């Protein structure tokens, strides 16, 4: 399944879009070095979520146009495995882009968002995000105006995950221990498990036509 990784387009799209968002904030804030942690973590994750959903909808509409998903469905591979393969590749795309975005952020705002918290937040966020985005990406690729539909469906559903990632990043930026760290972590992991199980179960229902 990892062969799909050859399409580098998606990483480029996510990174460039997020870079644009981060740059807008860097250019418009009067003193970028003095950014409050609260806004900083918001900027990072808002840019990742929006550019991620744009890039992913592109990815899935390509899949739909070339019928490559159908091609894989014709192969003797259990559909759950196909779902996990997609999640895995999107997970890797996201991780690469996030590393680049965070680097850009720390340069532009002269701050150091890197901390143990963000290192925990990234994989938990990515797993949940790629799981939900695969599910809704396949759904919305079959409709017209799929970019809008994917964003509309995706973002409200992953709000808990966004709150989780933002909160941990903020703690990292402030350089203090996050309150309720355990609660947040259990929330993030709970989200991942629930959605991985439920969506894998429902995946068969959305691909049959």
């Amino acid at each position: 399944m990892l062969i799909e990784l050859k399409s580098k387009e998606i990483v480029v799209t996510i990174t460039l879009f997020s870079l644009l968002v981060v740059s807008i904030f860097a250019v418009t804030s009067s003193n970028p070095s003095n950014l409050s942690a609260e806004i900083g973590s918001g900027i990072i994750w808002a840019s990742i979520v929006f550019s991620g959903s744009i890039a992913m909808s592109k990815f899935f509409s390509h899949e739909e146009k070339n019928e490559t998903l159908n091609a894989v469905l014709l192969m003797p591979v259990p559909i759950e495995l196909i779902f996990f393969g997609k999640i895995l590749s999107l997970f890797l795309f996201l991780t690469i882009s996030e590393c680049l975005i965070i680097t850009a952020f720390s340069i532009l705002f002269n701050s150091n968002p890197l901390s143990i918290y963000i290192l925990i937040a990234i994989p938990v966020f990515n797993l949940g995000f790629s799981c939900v985005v695969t599910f809704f990406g396949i759904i919305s690729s079959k409709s017209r105006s799929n970019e809008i539909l994917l964003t509309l469906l995706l973002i409200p559903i992953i709000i808990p995950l966004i709150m989780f990632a933002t909160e941990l990043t903020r703690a990292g930026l402030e350089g203090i221990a996050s309150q309720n760290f355990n609660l947040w972590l259990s929330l993030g992991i709970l989200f991942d498990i629930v959605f991985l199980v439920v969506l894998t179960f429902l995946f068969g229902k959305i691909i049959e036509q």
Partner: protein
Amino acid sequence: MLRNLYLIISGAALLLSVWMIFIWVPTEVNQGLIQRILYIHVPFAWASMVAIIAVAITSLMFLITKKIHWDNLAQSLAEVGVVSAVVMLFSGIVWAKPVWGIWWTGEAKLTTALILFLIYCAYLVFRNYFPPGGARNRIAAIIALIGAIDSPIIYYAAQIWQQNHPQVVVGPLATQESSLSSEMVITLLTCVLAVTLMFIGIVWVQYKTISRKGLKNV
């Protein structure tokens, strides 16, 4: 016959509640006139909450039985529910400003209501964008179900968030607890009853319309 009776009863209940809200019920001491928004806010909050639960249940029934009337019912419930949610959110915002001193706060119930409202908006948008047919109805039901599964997680997240970020509620009456007098309770119950009757009526009309449209398309 039954329909006329229903119309008369719910119409009477609505008129009665309007009279109670504006004339009969005494003004609350602490908040003043603005407190009367309660009689609109609570019934619509109740209606939209019932709608969301009912959409999830009817969607589940549709996935199990595959009978189209469950799906039509889910759609009409979602439409009316989203409108009730708009009324709830708007009346809440207008009420919060004078009482709490702010339009909006990150309180758990508010956040959850807002996000659920967004999820069900997306559900309706999906129904409009996706090519009609069996696949659309099935996926719509799945989305409703996922929304329902997500809601406790959202509420949980909003609660932890609230613990981290204590709210600044600076309104003049923010800290005062107010209790409802018996007249107020009666008014509130009447309003809830009237809105519920109206809600069921509109859902029913909407359901009939959607079913008829569906038959025409077949």
